[in-house]
Structures are given as C-alpha cells and as structure tokens.
C-alpha cells in the first residue's frame, strides 16, 4: 500500500471514529473520575448532588471554550455538535501534529539519520 493511500485511509477511519462512533461511546464516568466520585451521590446528569468526595475539589476548567467537553456550545443539536466537534478535533490534531513534525524534520541540528 502506498504511503499516501495509507494516510488517507487512516485519516478517514479517524474521522469516522471521532465524528460517528464516538456518539455511541459510554457516557459513564471514567476510571479516574469514578474513583474520585466515590462517596458522593450523583444525579441523572452526572452532577454531584450530595455526599463528600475528592471530585468536589475539582475546579471549573480554566478555559472552557466553544468546544468544551467535545461538544459545540453554539450548535443546537447535541448529536450534531458532538459529531462536528470530533471531526474538527481530528482535523486540528492532524494539522497541528503534521506541522510540528514537519518543522522538527526540517529543523537544524545533527542529522545522523539513515534517511
């Protein structure tokens, strides 16, 4: 398989995972969060409703932003917003990582690679 084809297929798979499959991911608290929530009761929305637990010390996120929690706060539909946030995220990460690695590959410094 050619590298360009391999990258194209891989990118499409990542987009489908983040923009589609992720909508069906488990919404239960994850491993760290569930342990931190031990001792608290939570309501149906996952917010702490009583008790005492370590998670109560967690602050609001410092930035938040329009893509906070893998949604789009300005899109009415939660499903559409979540899907778009995943797609935007994959494209952003692909662009940022490829750009940074390209700079790194071209940058100065010893090149004793077997390129």
């Amino acid at each position, binding site marked *: *398989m*050619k*590298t*360009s084809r*391999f*990258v194209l297929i891989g*990118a499409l*798979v*990542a*987009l489908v*995972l*983040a923009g589609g499959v*992720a909508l069906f*991911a*488990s*919404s*239960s*608290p*994850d*491993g*760290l*969060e*569930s*342990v931190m929530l*031990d001792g608290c009761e939570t309501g149906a929305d*996952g917010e702490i409703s009583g008790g*005492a*637990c*370590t*998670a109560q*010390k*967690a*602050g609001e*996120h*410092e*930035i938040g*932003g329009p*893509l*906070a*929690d*893998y949604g789009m706060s300005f899109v009415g539909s939660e499903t559409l917003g979540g899907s778009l946030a*995943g797609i935007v*995220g*994959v494209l*952003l*990460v*692909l*662009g*940022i*990582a*490829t750009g*940074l*690695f*390209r700079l*790194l*590959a071209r940058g100065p*410094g010893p*090149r*004793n*690679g077997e390129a």
Partner: protein
Amino acid sequence: MPDLALHIPNGIIGIPTSLAFGLAAALAVGACVAAARRGLDERLVPLAGLATAFIFAAQMLNFPVAAGVSGHLLGGALAAALLGPGLGVLCVTVVIGVQALLFADGGVSALGLNVVNMAVISTFAAYGVIALALKLLGRTRVGLTVAVFAASVVSVVAAAAGFLVEFWIGGEPIGQSFGAVAAAIGSVHVLIGIGEGVITAAAVVAVALARPDLVYALKGARIAEPAAVKEIA
C-alpha cells in the same frame, strides 16, 4: 460527554506539585524532541501526524469496563509500537495539549501531570515491554500481538501509578483513604489496560500486515510468517 480516563482536572492536585511535574514534563518532552529529530525523516511526518490524529479519535471512544465505569485508550502503546518512544511521546503530548487547551479535557494547571502520566510514562513503559517481549517471543504475528497487548496493560497501569504518586504528594482524598483510592485506581486501570491491549494489538498487527516498514518496533523486519510477499511502496 464526560471527562476522559486519567485526565486530571484542575484542583485535584496542589499547585506546587503541578508546577514541579510541569517542569518534569517540559524536560522530558524536550529530550524527546531531541531524540525524535535524529530519527525523523520527512517521509515519516504524515504518518506521525496520522498516528496523533488517530489517538485523539480513539481517546473519544469510552468503553464500559465495569458497572457505571468507563475507560478509553491512552495511546502510549500504539505510539510506541508504531513510532518508537521519542516520537511517540510527542504524539501523545500533542493530543493532551489540544484536549486541555481546546476541549476543556484535563486541567490546564494539570497539563504537566497529564503529560508525565499519559505521554511520558505510558509510552516509555510500553516501549520497554514491547522491546523485551519481541526479543523473547520473536517477531512473529503471535509475538507482536502478545508484546503489544502486554505493553498496553503495563502502560495504562504505569500511567495510573504516576497519578497515584502525584496524588500522594499533592492531593488530598476526601471521604476515603489513600489506600482505598490506590486500590480502586489500580484495579479499574487493569481493566482499561486490557481494553487498550485488545484495540492496540489489533491496530498494530493490521499495520504490520499492510506495511511492516511502518512499525518501528519491528525495526525494519517483516513479521515472520509464510505469507505471500507484500508490496513495499
């Protein structure tokens, strides 16, 4: 969607500890930049970018591990197997940085903690296990599968252990003892590691069959199998 496994929010670990681990993260990532630059030629760039995007996507896929508890891939084992430890750390670091700065996933003040656990510790632990296991088992399909699976479990548990060290230094459990937290974190992350192992082994073996030259851990060898000769583009 909820926060994701092992992403520490701000406030859980004290600021001095967070800053100290921020410095440690910066030093480790800097060393990886230097190491990765030596092995990075331009042909690898799109593949490293793709691996990073793939890890970002995979981290969105929380799978259930117990009643009411989920987990997701961390990606250190995948990055280590495909790209090696130096470049692998950089991939996961980019993912964690984007998550903290744009997706409110993991505190900004906890960025150093999260990079140390999920990028540095998990990737290096995974690479150590893969290299050792391939030496013992040989570069066969079974050997690669077992090596990557074991590396995934070890990498997730090692990352969780990193969190526990940080929590022990700079955190304060409420309503439960540190021992109880450690036991709960440890057991749930063994389960998450098994999930990560299944996904990562499948992904790495798939790449190894299509393009063995793109699996860093194989060091240029194709996996030993009486399979038909595959094209190398």
